[in-house]
């Protein structure tokens, strides 16, 4: 039997990106990035368990420019996924579905996750300067 050619919905490229759809795919993207980042967690913990020498080399690797860039991306991914995840939990209990609320909570997620990233790094550098 020949497969019937059913109408297709427009492809993704047809739609203009909106805040809601961009945040939706970013949630998925940051989730995948965080899974990749767990490899760093494994490396860091095993280094700490292996002794002072292994830990020192892990620290110097993570403290390098490449390491810091990865940690910056990782921390933003974490804060974004955390904030947007809380937004998802509100939806799960049936709250915040109005279009206006969805956009407001989306903007809040962007602002708060960027602010949390800046605050975390600012605090880390501030404490290093104080130590």
């Amino acid at each position, binding site marked *: 039997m020949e497969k019937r050619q059913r109408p297709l919905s427009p492809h993704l490229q047809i739609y203009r990106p909106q805040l809601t759809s961009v945040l939706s795919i970013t949630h998925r993207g940051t989730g995948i990035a965080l899974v990749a980042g767990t490899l760093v967690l494994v490396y860091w913990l095993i280094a700490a368990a292996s002794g002072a020498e292994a*830990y020192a080399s892990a620290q110097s690797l993570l403290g390098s420019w490449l390491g810091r860039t990865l940690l910056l991306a990782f*921390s933003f991914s974490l804060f974004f996924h955390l904030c947007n995840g809380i937004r998802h939990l509100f939806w799960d209990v049936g709250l915040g579905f109005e279009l206006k609320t969805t956009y407001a909570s989306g903007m809040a997620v962007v602002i708060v996750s960027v602010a949390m990233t800046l605050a975390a790094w600012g605090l880390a550098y501030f404490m290093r300067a104080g130590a």
Partner: protein
Amino acid sequence: MKFRAPLARARGLGSAKSGTHHWWMQRLTAVALVPLSLWFVASLIALATADHATVVEWLASPTAAILGCALIVAVFYHGQLGLQVVLEDYVHAEGLKLASIVLTKLVSLLLAAACLFAVLKIAFAS
């Protein structure tokens, strides 16, 4: 129109026989990860420039070791559930889909075990 008998509705686990288990565990681990990840990030900020002895001392404390183990279990459970959904969405070849999901779950288990071992080694050795 109702097509299902009351008993089927009550049991209601669907064709995969797992019902809402995946969805529920994803939310449960998400709720657990809100405080756990905030605690972990705050600890890492405080430990950013700490030497090995300080990190070991911190991780060997009962609070850090217990919360750390809880974090590890929740992180790898949550991550593995999320990757499963991504693979189910984008991998269309049935065999490859099953193989990649099985691989994801087994590797997650292995990595979680490695992390737990590291934390427990530090906690019990010092």
